[in-house]
């Protein structure tokens, strides 16, 4: 069992959990992820290692509540424990001193770009960061990103906070100025696709982190297969980071939709159960009040 020691609501649908996992914390590197199972009936889901604290033996995971498992996860808190936790998985980011790099994080992808930007900064790179969300209330870790950036950009799709723009706009501006050696982008597939197209326009290499559906996370099943440079690769062991200019984005997006109908069913069932539970507790509370 893997104990949850702290919980923070970063945004209405984004939660941060601090989990006790000393062995993983000791080994974690930027760009890697874990696979966890909430309870005995649970699914294995991959989440990026957003941060880790080897001295305290803790890891940070940050997730957006999009379906059954992540919503269930968000109901847990200190005192609860995860049924299973495996990691660190995936190849770490190739951290070197490239010169000047741009790190783009979109939505919950901010959690994933943070350790990458930090590692690149520590390796001596000049770091330009661009983080963006749909709307103001989804923004998080802005200060953390600012702290390690030589030049931070912050934007929202709807303009409710800071600049009104998609992340690709500041990215294009920065690339237009020149002197950029490499770009990293993590976020929804569609965002990474357009970041890649933008970087390609300027002939700058771009690295993306592919979030395909996974089961084991060790290369055994092939659920996570993606196509890079015309070749089939397994995101869990060959990635998750790949050359963004070579990714078959349509295939990634198509394969992410594989279980759409089943995911919806699982979510509806979960929400019904939760509702029953809430009503039961409410009922209990009113009874007690009488």
């Amino acid at each position, binding site marked *: 069992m893997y104990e949850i020691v702290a919980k923070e609501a970063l945004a209405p649908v984004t939660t941060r959990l601090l989990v006790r996992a000393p*062995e*993983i914390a000791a*080994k974690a590197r930027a760009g890697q992820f874990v696979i966890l*199972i909430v309870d005995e*009936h*649970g*699914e*294995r889901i991959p989440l990026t290692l957003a941060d880790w604290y080897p001295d305290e033996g803790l890891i940070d995971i940050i997730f957006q509540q999009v379906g*059954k*498992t992540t919503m269930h996860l968000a109901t847990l808190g200190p005192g609860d424990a995860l*049924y*299973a*936790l*495996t*990691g*660190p*998985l995936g190849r770490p980011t190739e951290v070197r001193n490239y010169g000047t790099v741009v790190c783009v994080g979109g939505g919950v992808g901010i959690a994933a770009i943070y350790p990458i930007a930090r590692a690149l900064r520590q390796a001596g790179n000049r770091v330009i960061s661009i983080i963006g969300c749909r709307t103001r209330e989804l923004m998080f870790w802005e200060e953390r990103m600012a702290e390690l950036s030589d030049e931070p950009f912050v934007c929202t799709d709807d303009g409710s906070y800071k600049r009104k723009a998609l992340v690709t706009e500041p990215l294009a501006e920065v690339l237009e100025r020149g002197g950029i050696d490499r770009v990293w982008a993590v976020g929804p597939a569609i965002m990474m696709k357009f970041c890649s197209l933008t970087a390609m326009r300027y002939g700058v290499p771009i690295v993306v982190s592919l979030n395909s559906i996974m*089961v*084991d996370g*060790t*290369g*055994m*099943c*092939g*659920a996570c*297969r993606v*196509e890079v440079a015309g070749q*089939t690769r397994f995101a869990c*062991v060959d990635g998750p980071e790949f050359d963004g200019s070579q990714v078959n984005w*349509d*295939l990634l997006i*198509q*394969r992410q*939709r*594989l*279980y759409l109908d*089943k*995911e919806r*069913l*699982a979510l509806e*069932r979960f929400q019904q159960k939760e509702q029953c539970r809430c009503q039961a507790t409410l009922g209990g509370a009113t009874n007690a009040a009488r």
Partner: protein
Amino acid sequence: MPRANARRQPMPEQDPAKRRHNFLEVALGYTPDLAQAEAERCLQCRRPTCIDGCPVGVEIPQFIAALRAGDLESSARILKNRNNLPAICGRVCPQETQCEVKCVLARKGEPVAIGRLERFVADWEREHNPIRPEIAPSSGYSVAVVGSGPAGLTAAADLARMGHRVVIYESLHQPGGVLIYGIPEFRLPKEIVRAEVEYVQSLGVEIRLNAVIGKLYTLDELLSHHDALFLGTGAGLPIWMNIPGENLNGVFSANEFLTRVNLMKAYLFPEYDTPVHVGRRVAVIGAGNVAMDAARTAVRLGAEEVRIVYRRSPAEVPARAEEVVHAEEEGVIFNFLTTPVAILGDEHQWVRGMRCVRMQLGEPGPDGRRVAHPIEGSEFEMEVDMVIMALGTRPNPLIFTDVPDLERTKRGTVVADERTGRTTKERVWAGGDITTGAATVISAMGAAKRAAADIDAYLRSSARVW
């Protein structure tokens, strides 16, 4: 009085019409009367040839004799002395090519049903009187075992009985390897695997789950904490055909399909969270045990039409004979001498069919099986909406990160001495599918047993020559 002329007792089975709709065990097991009658067929040969066919050397006539005498406890003790996982072996060993083919009665057509008797005794033992073997006094040595499949469990159990401290490192969240994630519930109930794993734990073996070696620890890190290391990580990497359309939605590796259903219990979705896709018309490519399991699982999940597509002829089918018969009884269609050359997608990138070609058999290849060649101009389309690739597996290279001193073959298997399991890396032994490529439970166990004996000898010798 042995009744060698009596017919081999049939195994009671669930009716095919019923079992198509459930995941309950197909073979129901002998009743005491059937077991007694079958045991009486054994001639108790002076020089029993059957034992030669068993990679772990089960003392077959002895356990059968005790069973016949009604002393099930002794029978179980004899069985377990050589075989740590008899309830599993009794169910999944390919007996027709192992012990039973060597039985003297096989020559007359009907060998003693050794596997069924083994299952009967093991099941009795589990339900009545679990055997606690003697454990040697502590040696003070510690051995790391990587992987908790049949090889890892066998090595761990033997080493623990020899007095060593044993820690198994397993990457998944449940122990058992293929026994838990691959072989379906209807052939090998997971309760039985769990009971056999608990037996291994009862010998003092510690199992550390969720530990991916190569990621969480390197082999060298494990070697700095343990005196010896046994590698039993199997061959878990699916092989693909590399034909167009293989990444379409609706194409799965058998590993993914079976892992979702068995390990993650997707057949109980939405009671369990993990979903699985099932098509209406399913094609399984390949004809090994894995293919049979995938096909029969698809039948149970409600597919209307399930076919095995195999490039060779019935004579070359590598699956256990019993599984083929069971699959046929359950309505699985067999398309022999056929292979897909492309998978076709619809406008939503879902599978809608396969372009196939007919094959003919030529001369035997290096593995002794006849090589199949495509017949020119024989292409045709097959209408399917799900394709499961069951073409075999290779060892997963994940574990080999940063171990240049561990020699491997071109096929990715670890080079190890056949008799001792020693690899080219000092203090590292290996056995099972990781050295042979996808093989059998019992051959993995046999290799593990030999390695355990050698590890014990090595640890206790003062010279420690590698």
